[in-house]
């Protein structure tokens, strides 16, 4: 079976800065894949290339057997790519349910159905009690959850999560982890960018480590964390020798 998502030799340059160099990764159907790496590794850039915010300088991106390299974000969403934003981008003057309806309208043209779908998603993500609250009145953890809910309402095949677990309290993070598992169990493939290693590692099936814009290592989380190259990228060479 072909991979759901594939990047082939992707480069992204911003002026003189090379954010991604020759990145080739693939994500299989039903997987939870973690995209990790130290600050400035090029995770967010790669993430935005996959979501369709901008096309790569070079290379191609394939989704569900189709070349989507130059497809705009809205169209990718229609094909089944859902995403969240690292810095939450709620529709602040709209209620929680209305935020989610916007997502649900991608596959439901009748308002009544879109509304029903949105309620279903709020139920699934544990936001049902907050449906009629303005998005601007949510606490940060709820806003993260709303990002996920909105993306889920578009009924994606692939859900891209950008640091949804970062900056949460341990309890909030655990609820978040449970939600991600639930999403995968619902048959949705997940690619998540994360910072907090101890939360991501037990959750993902496979981890891809980026460093300085390149794929450094990829494999099972237990192997990846022991890899000297990874330790060196995060902590410096001295520690890698020690390991």
């Amino acid at each position: 079976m072909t991979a759901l998502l594939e990047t082939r030799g992707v480069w992204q340059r911003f002026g003189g800065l090379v954010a991604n160099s020759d990145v080739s990764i693939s994500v299989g159907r039903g997987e939870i894949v973690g995209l990790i790496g130290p600050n400035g590794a090029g995770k967010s850039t790669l993430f935005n290339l996959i979501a369709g915010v901008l096309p790569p300088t070079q290379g191609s991106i394939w989704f569900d057997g189709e070349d989507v390299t130059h497809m705009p974000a809205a169209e990718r969403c229609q094909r089944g790519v859902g995403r969240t934003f690292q810095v939450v981008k709620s529709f602040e003057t709209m209620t929680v349910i209305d935020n989610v309806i916007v997502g649900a309208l991608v596959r439901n043209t009748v308002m009544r159905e879109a509304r029903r779908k949105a309620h279903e998603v709020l139920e699934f993500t544990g936001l049902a009690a907050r449906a009629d609250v303005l998005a601007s009145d949510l606490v940060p953890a709820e806003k993260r959850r709303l990002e996920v809910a909105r993306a889920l309402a578009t009924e994606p095949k692939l859900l891209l999560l950008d640091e949804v677990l970062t900056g949460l309290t341990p309890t909030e993070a655990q609820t978040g982890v449970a939600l991600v598992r639930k999403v995968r169990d619902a048959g949705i493939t997940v690619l998540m960018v994360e910072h907090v290693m101890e939360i991501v590692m037990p959750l993902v099936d496979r981890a891809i480590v980026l460093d300085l814009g390149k794929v450094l290592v990829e494999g099972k989380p237990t192997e990846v964390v022991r890899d000297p190259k990874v330790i060196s990228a995060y902590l410096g060479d001295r520690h890698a020798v020690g390991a």
Partner: protein
Amino acid sequence: MDKNFAARRRRDLIIAAVLAALAALAPLFIKDVYVQNILILTLMYAALSQSWNILSGYCGQISLGHALYFGIGAYTTELLFTKFGVLPWFGMLAGGVIAAVIAMGLGYPFFRLRGHYFVIATIVIAEIGLLLFQNWEWAGAAMGITIPVRGDSWLKFQFMRSKLPYFYFALALCSLAWFVTWWLEDSKWGFWWRAVKDNPEAAESLGVVVFNSKMGAAAVSAFLVAVGGAFYAQFLAYIDPESVMGFQFSLLMALPAVLGGIGTLWGPVLGAAILIPMTELTRSYIGGSGRGVDLIVYGTLIVLISLALPQGLVSLFSRTKAKRATR
């Protein structure tokens, strides 16, 4: 929850129907022509502001150039009527369609601009339109067009003896603009527009084609405003560039919505109901050398409202919005 939502929409519709019915009865008690005149203008500006609100309020693309579409509606109607004998009813539709097409043509380059740059572009384009009409000989240039009056006629939509037909048309137009907004509010377009206003990048990621949404809003908004322009031309029976395309029209469409509550269903109607009578009254009572006093009065009002109730006057009636405003 869904029940609440459906009930709220039904309630809005019932309130609107009752208000429209009451307004329709008003001429039975109000015989004074001067007051009738004010009512007509109030209804017209409520309709215009409601239409402006679709693009600028819901979709968040602030336009201060809607006078252009108003003027296009007026000129299309009168040029077709005086030069080709086309009845104003058809001219009105033609004006609406032309304005919608022009709005989309202008949107094509300008919707790439954001925030203030977009506002500036709309002002400049409307001024260019004004200059073009001032110099267009065939369209009467700065002298304008006088509409030949041959007695009262619904066919030619002109009335000398009574203002009531104009009153009922303005009421119908206002009701139509309100109803279109009401209907769009719970539609895919309505949701897309609000999403585009709040956060275009997030909207795009949820499958909203931001550019097309703006184009749709611009077309609907311009069409309705041009119909208003056609009405106004018939009502005046004389048009020149300044009196149907002047900058003040752009302001008088924006201000009621801002005062009443921008991006809300009731804001424009509420704002117009307060602002327009006040403008007319201050103009005639303080009048004369006081030309401009009306502007000072409602300038002050806008400043006070923006400070005290940034969501507009409707926030007094809506609990969630009021709570937000006081935060």
